[in-house]
C-alpha cells in the first residue's frame, strides 16, 4: 500500500523543544502513518530522544523541559490544556533505553501496572490482558510458570520484552521506543527486532536508534535528525539509497556520527 493511502496517526507541526534556554529540537514537522515502523536516526545529542519524548509529553517531566508547536494524535492536539496526561500516556506508550521493570512487583504485576487505572477491571480480565500482552511481546512461553516471581531474575532481553508487554497491555495506539536494544546482546536485539514486525500490525511504532543497520532492517520510514533539525524524512529504502540531502548521505554512508 502506498504511504499516502494510510491514515496519519500522529503529526507534529513546527515542534520546538527546549531545556531551559538550550534548544533541543527546532521546528520539526513530521507525520507518522498508522501501523508502520518509523525510525529516528542521527548522531548522539541531535534531538531524536527529545523529539520522541515530546510525543507523549514526557519532555516536560525533565527540569526546564518546554515544548512549543503542535502535536496531533488522531487530530487531537496533545498539548491542549484540557488534555489528561494519564489518558494521553495510555494512548502513547513508551519503552526506554534500559529495561525499567519495577523490582518490587511480580512479573504479572509489572504487566498489569498500566491497567489498574479505573480499578474496575476484574481479576480474570486483568489476567487475560496480561497473558495477551506477554504473548504479543514473545515472552509468554518463558514466564508463564513464574508469573508471580520477581522480574529481576530475568535476563536483560527478557526484561526489555517485559517492558514492551507492560507498555502494550493497555493497548495504546502509538508505541515509542527509545533505543530499546542499546543495552542488549545481539540475540536479545534480534528478538526485539522480530517483534516489531508483529507489533506494527496493531500499533504505530516510532523507534529511536543509533544503529543504522537496525533502522534499515526494521523500519518503513526513516527520519534523520542533525543538531536539533530534521534534515530529511522518507521511506527507509529511499533515505538509505538515494538521500536528497548531502548531510544525510554523509551520515548513512558512515562519514560521521
Amino acid at each position, binding site marked *: 500500500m502506498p504511504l499516502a493511502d494510510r491514515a496519519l496517526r500522529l503529526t507534529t507541526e513546527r515542534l520546538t523543544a527546549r531545556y531551559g534556554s538550550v534548544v533541543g529540537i527546532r521546528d520539526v514537522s513530521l507525520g507518522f502513518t498508522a501501523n508502520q515502523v518509523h525510525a529516528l536516526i542521527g548522531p548522539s545529542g541531535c534531538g531524536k530522544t527529545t523529539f520522541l519524548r515530546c510525543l*507523549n509529553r*514526557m519532555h516536560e*517531566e525533565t*527540569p526546564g523541559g518546554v515544548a512549543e508547536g503542535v502535536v496531533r494524535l488522531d487530530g487531537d492536539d496533545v498539548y491542549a490544556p484540557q488534555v489528561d*496526561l*494519564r*489518558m*494521553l*500516556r*495510555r494512548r502513547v*506508550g*513508551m519503552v*526506554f533505553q*534500559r529495561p*525499567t521493570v*519495577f*523490582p*518490587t512487583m511480580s512479573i504479572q504485576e509489572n504487566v498489569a*501496572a*498500566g491497567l489498574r*487505572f479505573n480499578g474496575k477491571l476484574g481479576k480474570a480480565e486483568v489476567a487475560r490482558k496480561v497473558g495477551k500482552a506477554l504473548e504479543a511481546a514473545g515472552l509468554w512461553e518463558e514466564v508463564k510458570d513464574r508469573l508471580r516471581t*520477581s522480574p*529481576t*531474575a530475568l535476563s536483560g532481553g527478557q526484561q526489555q520484552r517485559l*517492558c514492551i508487554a*507492560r*507498555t502494550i497491555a*493497555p493497548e495504546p495506539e502509538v508505541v515509542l521506543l527509545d533505543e530499546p536494544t542499546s543495552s542488549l546482546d545481539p540475540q536479545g536485539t534480534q528478538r526485539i527486532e522480530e517483534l516489531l514486525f508483529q507489533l506494527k500490525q496493531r500499533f504505530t511504532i516510532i523507534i529511536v536508534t543509533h544503529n543504522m543497520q537496525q533502522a534499515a532492517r526494521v523500519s518503513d520510514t526513516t527520519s534523520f535528525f542533525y543538531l536539533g533539525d530534521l534534515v530529511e524524512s522518507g521511506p527507509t529504502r529511499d533515505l538509505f539509497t538515494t538521500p536528497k540531502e548531502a548531510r544525510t548521505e554523509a551520515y548513512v554512508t558512515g562519514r560521521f556520527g
Partner: protein
Amino acid sequence: MVGVLGLCAVLAVIPLLVILATLVVKGAGSINLDFFTRLPVPAGETGGGVAHAIVGTLMIVGGACLLGLPVGIAAGIFAAEWPASRLAIASRFIADVLNGTPSIVVGVFAWTWVVARQGHFSGFAGSVALAVLMIPMVMRTTEEMIKLVPHSLREAALALGFPRWKTSLVVMVRTCLPGIVTGSLLAVARIAGETAPLLFTALGSQYMNFDLRQPMAALPLVVFTYATGPYEEWHRLAWATALVLIIVVLILSLAARFATRRRFDASR
C-alpha cells in the same frame, strides 16, 4: 601504609570492645528474671529490678515513633520529590542543623513547650523531645533512599500514565522501603539511648506507670540515677541496666542489618 590504616581500624573498635567487656563483666552477674520483672526496692535493700524503666522506655520511644516517623518519612518524600523547591532546600538545611544539635538543647525546648505549659513532667514530653531528635534523621535517610532509586523507574511509571503521587508511593517509596525501615530502626536505636532530653521531660519515676501523662522511668534515666547514687547496690543495677540498654540498641541495629540484607536478596 596498610599497617597504619589497619592499626587505626583496630584502634577504632577497641573502645567499643572495652565498653562491651566491662558491661558484661560488671553487669551480667546482676541480670536475672527479677531484674526484668520487679520494681526497685528501697535504698539499702538488695535485689529489685527495672521493669518500670523497661516499660517506660518502650512507651516513650513508642510515642516518639508515632509522632516522629510519619512526619520524618513524609518530609523525606517531599524533599526527594521536589528537590529544588525552596521548602525542600530550607528543610534539608534545618534538618542537617538539627541533626548536629546537642540533644540536651532539644530537651530544654521540649521542657518549655510541653512541661512548662502543662505544669508537670510527663512521659509524653519525653516522647516529644525524642520525636524532635528523630524527625531530621528519618527525613534525611528517607530522602537519600528515594534518591537511590533509579530515575528511570520514575519515568517508566509516569510514561505508563501513573499520576505523580502514585509514582511516588507505589514505585519510588515501595522500591526503597527496606532502606527507609533500616533508617527508621537506626533512628529508634539512636534515640532509645538518649538521656539528656529525658531529664527535663520524662524526669524518671520509681513506680510502674503506663500513663504517658505522668512522669515516667526510662532505662537511660535509671543508669544516670543509679550510677550517680551513693549505694553499691545501685551501682550494680546501673551496670546491668547499661548492659540491657546496649543490648537493645544492638538488637535494633541487627534488625536494621537484616532489613537491608533482605533488600539485596530481593533485588538479586
